[in-house]
């Protein structure tokens, strides 16, 4: 306990991914007057800067709705803040750390994700900071288990979609992940990693795919000229993928009974785009929607096969691809339920892409 208490503020956890940097910051709310007295100026200034803003620079964003309040961490009470910014702004972030004399605070900066390696040198030379690099998957799993155990401000962190195959009756419901094992954890960032988790310490990376969030966004940029993930999703929400994709019924006129394939199933993603006339008749929104559906279904399909091979029936989807992306979540829930004949359940977590960063913070505190 005493040792833990020695951890000096500020408490950060950093996850530097291919596209996004995720930062969690623990804001202590139980600072005594004595402590406040002793607190160095730049520490105070960092706390103020982070907690009084919801946006940082032109690209940093604090997900206020995700903030965890009155959390007790290592004997301290406080709020956990969730902040993200694009990885390409990493140099500016390090520059800011340098300007705010972060290194003088004598804290350790725990970081995970590929960028922990990529930017390690920059942290050292530009920011005079020694990064503590942490394993990405370790952090991810620790973060998931921790956040699920503390809950989401009294609500359930984990949820699922009931009646996913019925558009009318489909609804989001809390799920109790008290006995989580075994579970398949599908992390959809720029790419996708799939882990089979058997216990806190026992997990393995089953496989991964390069068709992930980066593919959706990258293809949308090329196909529609959009420039943000939000814009791409917004377009997708107004499009119709069946104009772009070739469905089973487009080929067979209805269901393909020989193989038990329903007419609505996609037979060929972008299959209609082989025809010049159809290429000319689709909208950007249709293309964005088709891209989203293609990538999502594919992830669902690979996840389902992994679940079958690993003999696991609960599949938890996380990662920032799912942020504000109800279309994909419902599609995943639907696809998993339909193609497994109800045997597999798709689960989701409210803090989508932040678990790696949370895990990094926990590592810092040594409490995990």
């Amino acid at each position, binding site marked *: 306990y005493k040792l833990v208490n020695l951890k000096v503020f500020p408490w950060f956890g950093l996850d530097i991914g291919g596209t996004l940097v995720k930062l969690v910051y623990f804001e202590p709310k139980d600072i005594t007057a004595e402590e406040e007295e002793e607190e160095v100026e730049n520490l105070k200034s960092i706390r103020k800067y982070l907690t009084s803003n919801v946006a940082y620079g032109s690209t940093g964003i604090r997900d206020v709705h995700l903030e965890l309040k009155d959390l007790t961490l290592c004997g301290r009470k406080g709020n956990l803040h969730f902040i993200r910014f694009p990885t390409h702004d990493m140099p500016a972030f390090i520059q800011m750390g340098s300007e705010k004399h972060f290194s003088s605070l004598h804290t350790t900066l725990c970081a995970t994700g*590929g960028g922990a390696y*990529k930017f390690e040198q920059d942290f050292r030379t530009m920011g005079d900071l020694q990064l503590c690099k942490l394993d990405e998957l370790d952090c991810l799993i620790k973060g998931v288990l921790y956040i699920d155990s503390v809950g989401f401000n009294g609500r359930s962190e984990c949820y699922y979609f009931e009646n996913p195959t019925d558009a009318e009756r489909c609804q989001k419901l809390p799920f109790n992940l008290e006995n989580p094992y075994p579970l398949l954890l599908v992390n959809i960032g*720029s790419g996708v990693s799939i882990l089979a988790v058997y216990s806190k310490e026992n997990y393995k990376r089953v496989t991964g795919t390069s068709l992930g969030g980066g593919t959706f966004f*990258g293809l949308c940029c090329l196909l529609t000229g959009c420039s943000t993930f939000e814009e791409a999703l917004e377009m997708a929400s107004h499009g119709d993928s069946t104009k772009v994709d070739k469905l089973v019924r487009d080929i067979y006129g209805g269901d393909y009974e020989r193989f038990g394939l329903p007419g609505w199933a996609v037979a060929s993603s972008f299959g209609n785009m*082989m025809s010049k006339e159809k290429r000319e008749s689709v909208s950007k929104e249709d293309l964005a929607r088709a891209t989203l559906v293609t990538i999502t279904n*594919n992830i669902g399909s690979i996840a389902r096969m992994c679940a079958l091979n690993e003999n696991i029936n609960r599949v938890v989807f996380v990662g920032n691809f799912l942020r504000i992306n109800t279309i994909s979540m419902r599609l995943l829930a639907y696809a998993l339920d339909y193609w497994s004949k109800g045997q597999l359940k798709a689960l989701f977590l409210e803090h989508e892409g932040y678990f790696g960063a949370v895990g990094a913070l926990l590592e810092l505190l040594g409490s995990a």
Partner: protein
Amino acid sequence: MPMRPSKEWVAIKMAERGGRGSGGHGSLDKSITLPPDEIFRNLENAKRFAIDIGGSLTKLAYYSTVQHKVARVRSFDHSGKDIEHEPLYEISVQEEITARLHFIKFENTYIETCLDFIKDHLVNTETKVIKATGGGAYKFKDLIEKKLGLKVDKEDVMTCLIKGCNFVLKNIPHEVFAYQKDSDTEFRFQTNHPNIFPYLLVNIGSGVSIVKVETEDKFEWIGGSSIGGGTFWGLGALLTKTKKFDELLQLASKGQHTNVDMLVKDVYGGAYQTLGLSGNLIASSFGKSTTADKEFSKEDMAKSLLHMISNDIGQLACLYAKLHNLDKIYFGGFFIRGHPVTMRTITYSINFFSKGEVQALFLRHEGYLGAIGAFLKGAEQDNPNQYSWGENYAGSSGLMSTSPDVFPMQRTRSGTFDMFEMDRLERPLVNLPLLKDPSTYIPDTVDLTDDAMARKYWLTCFEEALDGVAKRAAASQPDSIDASERAEKFRQKYWNKLQTLRQQPFAYGTLTVRSLLDTREHCLNEFNFPDPYSKVKQKENGIALKCFQSVIESLDSLGWEERQFALVKGLLAGNVFDWGAKAVSDVLESEPQFGFEEAKSKLQERPWLEDSYSQWLERLKEGPPHKCALIFADNSGIDIILGVFPFVRELLSRGTEVILACNSGPALNDVTYSESLIVTERIAAMDPVIHRLDKGLAVLVRERETDLVIIEGMGRAIHTNYYAALKCESLKLAVIKNSWLADRLGGKIFSVIFKYEVPCK
């Protein structure tokens, strides 16, 4: 002789009529007639049509009977005649009818013209129905019914595909190949496994179907993916504004995906090595194009798309293979068809995701599977599945004859025809029951697809011998007025085949000396030269028979040990008489007096190049007589009569039964089964030790408990079975009548191979 790019039909000009965008079908320029003996062959007798119409190619199948000539020998009744001056037996050429399956592939543009052509040439009208499959079958239904007057009967695409797949897997040697990049020959053919089931068929059309095939009739669609060929084509067209599938592939083969994809090293920086990850792995496909400001090249985007799709398909295929515990995955569909680019990426993906445990396999006749299956569906009453069928090399175009990668010119000209023909085999081929391990038996010593030096040598060898064979063929039919014209056609055809094989050694599967010989026989038969050496053999058999008794007498005068050596030497000397070897045929042409004694003097002195004669002698001396010896004989004339028969006689007198095995059909001056019967009969008349048995070889071998196999001649003992391991004792002997091969084996011309092997206990 000029080098020719490919088959005869390249020269056939096709001209497109009708506007391009108007959807009008192209038609043949009628001023240039399509020669029926080259494309839609044997249409007069054609029946049981089937058609498979895909997105861009049509595959037509039919069954026909082919009348061709066969050489027959018949013994004369010699009673009371002066046999000194009569030939030993009579040779006649007779007509025989055999069944042939024809498959032709052409672009959909030509469908109307082809249907017209078929209608014009179709004599037989008993056919009422045409089986149809493929996505385009519906679209062209009315056209087919109108043009051919046949009722179109639709068959399920996947059922046809599987049926066709089973058929080629069972009947075509070297049907299956693995793709190897960066190797001299990119195609690694697999030896047919006796049991083809179960397997996974991944068909990559516009989408992907994954089918598990368990038996001839049992298959199950176990999954699929919507990300397939249509995704590559559709998305590729959107991204690059390139309309054609082939052009997209061309773009992809020139691109750099690393400009578009986010790699592991892009995420991890330079430090990925510490993680045990390869920095070049793709972390996120199109992960670098997440910006509106940058331009990306068409080539790079196409390449990235190709990788994305191939990897995805490979990954899913591996997941399905794992779940269903299967290790054979065959890939097909238009995405794969003849495209080295996609075969390479799929192979890479399967290797990566299965960690080398599963091999991506491809099929030489993949494009024909649907047509074959539809045909089989329609021919169920003929039960083609109960027969064995063999690929006719003379009538088949070979792998990738229309591939843009091999013949870029040809493809752009458009309108090429690819053909595949199969002949019904007289009897099913089975493995010799004495083989130690039939599943690993490879009946070819040197793989010429792999061995470029050997390939060059042998192709040249066959080229140089060609004029002689053609001359011999013409001479074998002195009474036929068109013999020399046909001989020239044969020469031209085989020459073209050899040129094709120089460019595409993989065209008909693994290239071997055996397949070169088979191709020559197929070409000879094509032009009605069933047995060009029949006359030569007849003469030589007659001459040799006259010497038989004196050879026997001189052998009998020797002591036992001396005799054993003389017998072996006789066997080897006899084997010098081979018209297939240029060094020998030159001698035989120029020195008609060249005889048995001259041949003996040519032989290498002991120790021979491969010499286990002492062990053999020891075995004869010490061991009990063999129960039954199986001898594969080589040439007719001196070889069989003065070499093999005295040896046979010695074995018989030891109490060993002998089965003499000869070719069922003619090949150069090899002794055929029917000739051997006459020869045996004549020798039996002279020599009471010899009498005859006649039964199916495999049955006989088992019944008689064969414990010694003797394989004679370069073809059987060296080119094919040199490394074949048998369950019983074996003797492989041959004289190397070819200086290149002798050189390679470390000897000189007329070196002797005498390889006696005892299986290890």
